[in-house]
């Protein structure tokens, strides 16, 4: 049933398709290289995505003031809510992708206690191996989020109470 006549006659013409293809490819490569140069940082960052610091999204995307980003008040790095430290970025990178830093700042433990929490997250919550960062992270946590000596039951925190007048019938 096949119609042999439909086969085009073979001719010795230069392969324009191949030539045009090559030109297109080169142009694309140049454009991409340009694009990469322009967006290099963001692309790299996107590939090795670091977890975002917590805080206000709008501020995060609009701010251009570098200092704002690293602002520290009373030893607390405002953006992340974590204690300021030269190694802070390691902790932000490793510990704030799944949950906010509030889970860290609420807790207090010894170095061993923090290690146990990390092992628990590794065993049950998909936390990966922290490699060389682990001792850095543990030192940081044990330094700033250590348990305080307390009795079996604390006094009511009288200083923290907002006293108000309650009018009652005599």
């Amino acid at each position, binding site marked *: 049933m096949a119609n042999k006549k439909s086969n085009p006659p073979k001719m010795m013409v230069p392969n324009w398709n191949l030539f045009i293809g090559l030109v297109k490819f080169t142009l694309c490569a140049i454009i991409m290289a340009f694009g990469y140069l322009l967006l290099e940082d*963001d692309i790299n960052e996107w590939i090795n995505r670091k977890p975002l610091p917590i805080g206000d999204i709008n501020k995060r995307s609009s701010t251009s003031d570098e200092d704002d980003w690293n602002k520290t008040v009373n030893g607390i790095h405002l953006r992340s809510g974590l204690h300021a430290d030269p190694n*802070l970025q390691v902790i932000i990178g490793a510990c704030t992708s799944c949950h906010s830093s509030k889970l860290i700042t609420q807790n207090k433990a010894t170095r061993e206690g923090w290690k146990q929490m990390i092992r628990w997250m590794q065993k049950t919550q998909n936390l990966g191996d922290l490699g060389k960062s682990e001792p850095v992270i543990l030192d940081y946590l044990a330094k700033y989020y250590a348990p305080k000596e307390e009795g079996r*039951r604390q006094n009511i925190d009288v200083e923290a109470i907002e006293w108000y007048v309650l009018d009652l019938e005599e």
Partner: protein
Amino acid sequence: MDSEQSRSRRTFIKSSSIASLAMMLGTPIIYGSNLSSGDSIIGEAITEWFDLPGKSSELTVLNDRPINAETPAHLLNDDLTPNDLFFVRNNGIPPNKVDVSIWTVSIEGESAKNKKAYTIADLKSKFKTHTLNLTLECGGNGRSEYNPPAKGNQWSIGAVGCAAWTGVLLKDVLADVGIKSNAVYIGYYGEDTHLSGDPDKDPISRGVPISKALEPESMIAWSMNGQDLPQLNGYPLRLVFGGYPASCSGKWLSKIVIRDQVHDGQKMSGKSYRIPCDPVAPGAKVVDEDMCIIERMPVKSLITYPKTGALIKQGTRLPIQGHAWTSADQITAVDYSIDFGVNWMACKVSPAKNKYQWQRFEAEVEIPKVGYYEVWAKATDSDGNSQPIILPGWNPKGYLNNACHRIAVKVK
């Protein structure tokens, strides 16, 4: 050191452009917090404002990712806790798109005689609808007081609430599917997702012994206080078990398994929702094998009026009000003390409409002289159990703190 610092600085600044990129691409960054202009720093905490969907801004937010928020005691004075004031304990990310018309819950498992799936409309038409007032309390409520500190969200006193839940009895649905005689446990699965984004991992999948599942107060509920469940409390369907840690009451419920063994889902093992089988000294190391699953919750109470910090005039009578709850049949007494436990006086206690509803107590307190006072409340239940004044037994994850509630009052 310097270059190290500036490098990390750069990384930090650059992550801002990633945030905007992520937003442009529509990657959801949910539940971002808004620092208000009046940012203040108290101790180590940054005071931030959060918009939790369907929730009052008066809740105390312990964590915004995942969302965990508790209710200040004085906002729990209603007999039924309003939906926007009901605490939130999320382990993962709630589903964000819910189509109620196609939502189903399937019942299966080794000890189920059949496998059946029900839409919410099926549940409403096939089974009798019930409304019960049930108290839910997080097993970790009160954790913040333990010493040495216990791990997890540092709940103070407000991870508790009582609502009117409308739905069907779990026992009716389980009977429709058929329960084999070897059934020992039920487990639940919900449609929330794990924080790591891993779709194959459950944030939480717990359950209760079959005897608890068959109690006449154990429910599959679609409504809370006459409204749809709040998104953060399990919309559109959840389990409700009064008297057990609230983590048993699975939210965004899509599957129940009838098990021939103790359910082994996420957060059923290790130290999660477990306490040492035998009491241990504070700070003791306990191996996982020596930890037992928490079942019944202990007797407890809260003073919900007045708010702590009242300044009152000498010669006035101070009315106090609150709620007491237990996993036993009922609360039999609530006593208060204004002299640090030396003398105790009885409060009037109202009966509950059904088991596991919290019960209102009230009293008129006469304070003889000027000075600083604390009002303490202590409930007793029909099992004869009462509340400790200091902390109950320490445990590694800080569960079951039912120490009596204290408020401060000054008389001038």
